[in-house]
């Protein structure tokens, strides 16, 4: 399924990440997945939370540059070869992946992996066709 991810611009300065987590804690927002892409000078923190609209407003009010992006939450079997199967499907169906990271979500024995794909509609269609898109709680 398609979910909302929040990206936040962070300078490579001590304590910036702590500011973000503190702010989210204050607004009682639960982080379900996160990853950081970094360069020498700055980083981009990407998070999936339980209340994206509230989180985005809190971050912007707190002076951060933040925006939402639509990404795919994909169910992957939590066993050897689980991710490989999904990747093979994406490869065969030409779903180009820009980046991916894992979440803390788990549906029974399935892990939830966050995919940013080039063509979201195509990605969603393939996920549905292959029964990878089950419901997630966020």
């Amino acid at each position, binding site marked *: 399924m398609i979910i909302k991810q929040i990206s936040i*611009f962070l300078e490579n300065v001590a304590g910036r990440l702590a500011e973000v987590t503190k702010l989210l804690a204050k607004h009682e927002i639960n982080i379900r997945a996160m990853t950081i892409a970094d360069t020498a000078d*700055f980083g981009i923190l990407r998070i999936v939370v339980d209340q994206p609209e509230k989180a985005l407003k809190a971050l912007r009010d707190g002076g951060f540059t933040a*925006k939402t992006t639509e990404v795919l939450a994909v169910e992957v079997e939590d066993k050897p070869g689980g991710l490989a199967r999904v990747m093979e499907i994406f490869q065969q169906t030409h779903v180009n992946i820009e*980046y991916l990271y894992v979440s803390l979500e788990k549906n029974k024995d399935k892990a939830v992996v966050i995919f940013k794909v080039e063509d979201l509609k195509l990605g969603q269609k393939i996920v549905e066709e292959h029964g990878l898109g089950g419901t997630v709680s966020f």
Partner: protein
Amino acid sequence: MIWNPEAECMPPEQRRRLQLAHLKNLVERVYEKVPFYRKKFQQAGITPKDIRSLEDIQKIPFTTKDELRETYPYGLLAVPEAEIEEVHMSSGTTGTPVVDAYTKKDIDVWSESMARTLAMAGTTRNDIIQNAYGYGLFTGGLGVHYGAKLIGANIIPMSSGNTSKQILVMRDFKTTILTCTPSYSLFLAEAAKEEGIDIRSLSLKAGCFGAEPWSENMRKEIEEKLGLQAYDIYGLTEITGPGVSSECEMKNGLHINEDFFYPEVIDPETGKVLPDGAKGELVFTTLVKEGTPLLRYRTRDITFLFHDECPCGRTTVKMHRLFGRTDDMLIIRGVNVFPSQIEQILMAVEGTDPHYLIVVERGASHLDELEIMVEVEAKFFTDETRGLETIRSKIEHEIKSKLGISARIKLVEPKTIERSIGKAKRVIDKRKI
């Protein structure tokens, strides 16, 4: 040595008569040939006949850099275009260049001014001048070149950059006179050291350094590290380029070639002419220029004038080394840069009114380093580093191609840059000069 004792050591009264004759001629020429000036005279209610003494120059309205931009390219031309033999230009505040067009005689005057400048640093026809000022539209390279030709010295037209070759040539051709920006001289010294060459043991005896602000402390450092006598030289494209004024061996103020370039210092607020010793904005009138003559041109440079009995024997008026500028122009590695130019580039790339801060430093390399901090706006922020890196390299590229300087762009979080009430603080200059 004194290149032209007759002109440079002339009794001041005699020089004043000469200046007045030149001024009267200049005013008549421009009134007749340049509509821009005629209109100015008419608006001020004066005609060339009102200029009867040197003091009467104060009746003439000032000319500003903005007006040079508005009349681009040839609005100030006082001769038929066919008379122009060379054109130079420097960048203006908005990117429209400021033009100086030279006739044959203008090139002769420039050569003479630069021969005087080089001679003040001890240059004779036996010297080997290594000219590391840029050749091209910038006046530094060709200005030194013409002066050296007039003296008959051996001029090596290195132009700027290419540091390894500079050191090689300096060693193998036994350069005696170095001409470049003061910061580049220190950069050369460091680079030579890294290549295992003691630059002090080479043949250098003097350097003519200009095109950027420097200080007495920097002079000491240069003289110590390069083993030469360091002289401050001054000029600006609008007036002629280098050769407007320079230091003699006394290193106590810069002798102005006032038979060509008539100086005044004014209060930048009121426009009132200030007496000797009072700091203000330097103004020049190009007494003998044919191509693009300037009347009372406001340089925006801050200094004061003084008359002393210089032991060198020259009787020309002197100016103190520059104290700064009346505007926010920065000189980065000899290139004139206005914060407004950077702002325009940022706006063009981002499509938004940017919050930015320009930081200039002179680091371990001794060269000016420019860093521009730009706040990341929601409008151009993306979830991928690639997007931001693209914007960053685009800004760097635009600055390089439009302004001719390298800048490091640092993307910072919103509200990082201090907000001030009124005019924003756009520049932090950390250079210790």
